[in-house]
């Protein structure tokens, strides 16, 4: 037996505690007395929880919500109340995000900070998303909707960004190159292809951009909710930062997020032309050379990320079979990089 508070909590105990905490926080934040039921855990990450639930008023009227919370007061990438503030900023600008009802840092409800938002109906699991999109014929529409969503997000004055959002130290391009150079040095074995890419990126670095924007940083299949009409919501704003807007567009168009739909450059959904046209119609400005540079950077960065997962598996920081497999996926990114860099 471990000491008090150390024994792992059973799933039932955790659910009961979460239910009681949510009922109490609805009373405190919204002055509403509700019964919480039908909890569904949508992401079982070790650090962060996303749980869907129904809150029913005494009158018997129930509504689905989503709570995003940290089970402890551990360090957050982006403090949850600021993430909630970012949702509101994005929503006000017309980016499809779940509507946030309240956010609190008070750990008494569920052990750490939390925010409660609408539960948006739709699909999020990548391969199921692509099957649904194929069946409903919404792929090209989604490519355009993603372009519009980026235009709306990037039109926000970046000085309005929540204070904890990362800002570039130098330029986004210089920061990215310094980070990848560091990761390149930390590889477990030298990679000629990654070395070639680092050098190419340095010698082809685009000039300082037109301007900075709030960028989401990880818009791709898996971080969006897709319904019959197409894009219903953009999720997971944890790595948002102030950066180069083209970085955001390029990340969405990496081959590794197409899940086999390789000829549909925009996330496996549709062609680039629809995406860019919608982005420009929404006031965004597109530069194909800069976009290409950020695609090379993104492909390289994800390859380094996979290599880092394998290193974490091997040195015991985070060991499991999926992380081990990551090391043997690096070759896919090396091939994609070389294809993008064909002389």
């Amino acid at each position: 037996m471990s000491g008090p508070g150390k024994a792992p909590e059973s799933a039932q105990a955790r659910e009961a505690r979460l239910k009681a905490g949510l009922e109490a926080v609805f009373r405190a934040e919204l002055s509403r007395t509700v019964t919480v039921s039908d909890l569904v855990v949508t992401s079982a990450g070790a650090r962060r929880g996303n749980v869907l639930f129904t809150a029913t008023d005494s009158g018997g009227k129930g509504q689905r919500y989503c709570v995003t919370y940290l089970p402890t007061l551990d360090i957050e990438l982006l403090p949850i109340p600021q993430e909630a503030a970012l949702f509101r900023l994005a929503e006000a600008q017309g980016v499809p995000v779940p509507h946030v009802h309240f956010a609190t840092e008070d750990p008494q409800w569920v052990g750490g900070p939390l925010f409660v938002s609408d539960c948006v109906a739709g699909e999020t699991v990548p391969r199921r998303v692509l099957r649904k999109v194929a069946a409903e014929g919404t792929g090209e529409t989604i490519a355009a909707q993603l372009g519009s969503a980026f235009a709306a997000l990037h039109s926000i004055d970046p000085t309005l960004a929540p204070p904890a959002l990362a800002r570039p130290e130098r330029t986004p391009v210089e920061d990215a190159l310094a980070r990848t150079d560091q990761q390149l040095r930390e590889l477990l074995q030298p990679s000629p292809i990654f070395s070639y890419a680092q050098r190419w990126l340095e010698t082809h670095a685009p000039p300082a951009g037109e301007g900075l924007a709030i960028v989401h940083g990880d818009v791709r299949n898996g971080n969006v909710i897709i319904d019959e009409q197409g894009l219903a919501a953009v999720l997971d704003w944890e790595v948002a930062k102030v950066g180069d807007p083209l970085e955001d567009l390029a990340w969405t168009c990496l081959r590794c997020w197409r899940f086999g739909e390789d000829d549909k450059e925009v996330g496996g959904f549709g062609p680039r032309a629809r995406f860019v046209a919608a982005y420009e119609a929404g006031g965004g400005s597109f530069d194909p050379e800069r976009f290409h540079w950020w695609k090379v950077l993104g492909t390289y960065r994800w390859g380094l990320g996979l290599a880092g997962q394998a290193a974490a598996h091997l040195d015991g920081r985070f060991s499991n079979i999926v992380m081990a497999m990551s090391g043997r996926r690096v070759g896919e990114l090396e091939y994609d990089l070389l294809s993008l860099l064909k002389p």
Partner: protein
Amino acid sequence: MQDRPTAVELLDTLATYLEEEVGPELEGPLVYRTRVALNLLSVVRRELSDEEALAREAARLAALLDTAVPEGSPRLALEALNAQLAARLRRGGDAAFDEAAWPVLMTGAREKLAVLRPGYDGYDSAGERPGGAS
């Protein structure tokens, strides 16, 4: 020399065991992880089946670097050549060398994919570059 089953035959046995005996009993996240496990087994199987791969790659890199294949096991020789090539490409400044290196790197990348994920190189992103066609 070990007795049969050979290493490759043992991997096949493990794969069949996971697929036919363990798989049907599983649910939840274990289904996904077991699929990953099967995938890893097939990667190792393909890697073991091509015993000449390291020597071929060492010969290609040595030719590119205009040097002899170092003494020792093919693995050690290849590690040394890889380190030398990575350092030279990282340093850059020699456009002719970069141009000569690209097809050698691509051949190596394709050989890795033949082990890791056969067919992945059926798509070529070169067409997505500014100005287009590959």
